[in-house]
Each structure stands twice: as structure tokens, then as C-alpha cells.
């Protein structure tokens, strides 16, 4: 699947849950929806857990090049 935004995936997941709630879907489609829903839920969780914490300082050198430096947080 192409790059999917977290928000779109979450909305899709919510939609699938409410569709299944209707109970009007044919079994085969319901199963498909279910699988799709589980996949989206996994995707969303992963997206939330995966983000790698990184704080950097964005600096521009006199020659115009941009550099990223790690930013040390001496967080109290």
C-alpha cells in the first residue's frame, strides 16, 4: 500500500467499525472489511509507536547550506 496518513487510516478504521455495526453487509464483504480494519488498526498503532524521537537544531551555514545538529535538552 502506498504511503498512508495516520489520520486517513484512522478515519477509514472508524468507518469500517460503523459499517460492520450495521450488520447489513454480506458475510464475505464483512470479512474483507474486518481484515482491512484490523490491518488499519495495526498500521495506526505502529505509526504512533514508531515515531523516533529526535530533536535537532536547524542551522544555516554562511554558504547557505542547511545542517541539522542534535539538540541536547538539559530538561529539568
Amino acid at each position: 500500500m502506498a504511503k498512508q496518513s495516520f489520520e486517513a487510516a484512522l478515519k477509514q478504521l472508524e468507518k469500517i467499525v460503523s459499517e460492520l455495526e450495521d450488520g447489513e453487509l454480506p458475510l464475505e464483504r464483512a470479512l474483507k472489511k474486518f481484515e482491512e480494519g484490523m490491518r488499519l488498526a495495526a498500521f495506526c498503532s505502529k505509526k504512533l509507536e514508531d515515531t523516533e524521537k529526535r530533536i535537532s537544531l536547524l542551522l544555516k551555514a554562511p554558504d547557505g547550506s542547511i545542517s541539522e545538529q542534535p539538540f541536547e535538552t538539559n530538561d529539568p
Partner: protein
Amino acid sequence: MTLSHGTGHVFSVTELTTEIKSLLEKKFSFVWLRAEISNFRVPASGHFYFSLKDRTARIRAVMFRGQNRRLTFKPQDGMRVIGFGRISLYAPRGEYQIVLEHLEPEGLGALRMAFEQLRDKLAQEGLFDEKHKKTLPFLPQTIALITSRTGSVLYDMLHVLERRFSGLNIEIAPAAVQGDAAPNEITDALELVNIHGKADVIILARGGGSLEDLWAFNSEQVARAIFKSAIPVVSAIGHETDFTISDCVADVRAPTPSAAAEIVVPQKHDLLQHIDELQQALANRMRQHCNQRCSQLERLKKHIVDPRRQIQMQKAQIAQIRPRLERSAVSMLQRKRGYLQVLTTILKNNKTIRYIQILKQEVEQYRLALERSGRQYLEMRQTSLTHLTKRLQDLNPTAVLKRGYSITREQAGGKIVMRAEAVKLGQRLEIILAKGLLEVTTHAKTDKNPFQFEDMD
């Protein structure tokens, strides 16, 4: 000691007051005054009444509604102001006062004016229009913070971000947020983040301060840089009560830097919980779905009959029906046959044939009768013809002549003579006899003939 006014002028109060009034108004027709406001009040008329004072003196002041309506700030007791007006004297009370045309807070006036002018100009250009506002991403992958590298604001925001959503990408583009260099540095930082192009959202933040402290965020340069940014900008300048031009241009205005961090990042915990709930719901719904189908299946199963049983049932039915079918076929055949016989019989002693014969006889009779009557008619006509011929012969004048009669007629014209009186003496007449013709001349005449018994007409 007695004082005498002598020959000096004696003023009436009005006269004196009028003179003082004209003196004052002439001398102080335009004055600038630096003072502090006290006893400020606005009665129903809408005019401002207050006192202007300094450490050792005080003067009454009025600013009429027409003028005070143009003020962009609300005067308050204790506020230091610079005013412009003329001195006037109110004769009934013998009080003089300054009638103010203009009033501005001391020191702030120029900045305030510049702020309002720039705000109006940019508003007119449409920089604040709602249609330009970009939507913030729901879950940004990378957040850019533009603020002072030193100072608590940066750490406040990092703290909130970490608390709400641990493990976010954050890039910091440091910039001076006050002082002369600030507008340039802020503009550069905005450009830098945009060129770098990784951030989904920018927070432009500064802690609280005086209007002068926040001035960089009221500069046209910064306003335009914010407007230009392709990445959505959340402004968080000063405290909730501070409102800068940057706030107007930004896509979202946050009351404080910490609030900006909260606006930009959702609670990771809430989201995870939500997803968890959704996943649970999904499983439950699917189970329900399956259960429903199962019970549906059970219900349907009860209605299903073993096909072999069904075949047997149908066979029995057929066995039951068959004799009836055969019987009915035979009886139908018999019925048809009987019907056929009836038809044949009817055909044999067909009344139609007899009827035709009768008609034929009738026609023959009519024909004979017609012949007969035709003959009779002819005979009858023959008889009457003979009779008529006889009568016609009887009427023939020659036949009359044969019996001795004659016809007399005028020779000229041939007119039959019936009366003697119609004949002139000497007239020539012809007398037609049974045989031959006499030509005679009339010698005498008598009006009566020997057979005549009465007049003939």
C-alpha cells in the same frame, strides 16, 4: 482705610469673565499637554470628562463625543497621556478647562498607531482572510519550533510535546524574538524551515512582554514571511491578552506557547486508546456478525427437506394423480365421441335439406301461379283490345257517313259547320258524303233544323 474706585472702570462679573475668556482662548488656542488622567467618567452624553494633572497642578478636561470616538484606546485613571486641545472658559461657573481634540497614551502612541496602520493595510490586502488559512495536520511527523534558543519558552514547548506524544521529530530554528535583529532572524528561520521542507507544522513562539518587546511580531516583514510559508504556522506570541499582527496572519493563533504545543500534537495516549477501542469494536462486531449468520443458518436449516424425501413425496403425489389423469382422459374421449355421434345424427336428418326442398316446391308453385296469371292477364288485355277496336271503328266518321250522315264544312278553312247562323248566304261549303263530296253554295238558311227540340249550345 477707605478705598475708592475713583474714576477707574468697574467690571460686571460677566464683563470680566468675558474678557478673561477671550484672553485665555486667544493665548491658548492650541496647546500640547503631558499629564496623567484622573476622575475619568463618561456620562450618558458620551462626552469624556476627566482631570489632567501632574504632581502639583490639575486642570479640568473634556473630550467631546465627536472627537473621542476616534480614539483607539480607552483612557483610564492613572494613564499617562499626551493631549492636544484649546483652553476654554465656562462662564456660568467661572471654570476654565481644556477641550481636547486628540489624546494618546504617552510613549505608546506612535507604536500603537503604526500597529493599527499596518494591521489595516494587511487586512485590506487580504493577508488575514480565512481562505488563506491552512489546516493543521492531524498527527504531524515533524514539528518546527521557531523561537529563542535561550529562555523557558522553548523548554516549555518541548516538555508539553514530550508529555503529549513521546517520540516526535522536532526541529528547532532559533531566532531572536526581540530587538532590532528579530524581524530578520524570524524571517530567515521561517524560510529555513520551508526550504528544509521536513516539518508538517511550524510553531512561532515568544513569551510575554511589553508591546515594545513583542514588536518584531508586529512588523510587516515577519507578517509577510508567515503569509508566504507553505507550511502551516501556529503563532503563540506573549500571553493570551497580547494580540500581534503575526497572530492575525498565522493559520492558527494559540494563546500561549504551551497551548500551541497542545494544539499541534494530539495526546498519544488518547489516540492509542481510541485505536484499541476501535480494534475491540471491530472484533466484537465481526463476532456478532458471525453469530447472526450462524443463527440465520440454523433457522434456514430447519426449513430444508431431504431431497430424497421430497422426491418420494412427489412420486406418491404423482401415483395419486395418475389414475385420475387416466380416468379423465378416457372419459374425455368418450365425451368427445358421444358428441361426434350427436353431430352426425343431426347432420343425417338434416332439416336444412328438407327445408330447401320445401322452398323448391314453393318456388315451383309460385312459378306456375305466375305463368297462369300472366296468361290470364294477356287474355284479358286481348279481349279488351278487340272490344276497344270495335268501339273505335264505331266512332270512325266514315262509319257514321255510311249510316247516311254527312259532314258540312267551309270550303275556305275547312271548319266544320254546326250552326246555320254561322254560314253566310252565298258562302261556299263542302258536304262530305259516305262516298264523294259535294261543293255547294248557300242559297238560303234556317236557324232551326227539323230535329231540333231545344237550343244547342
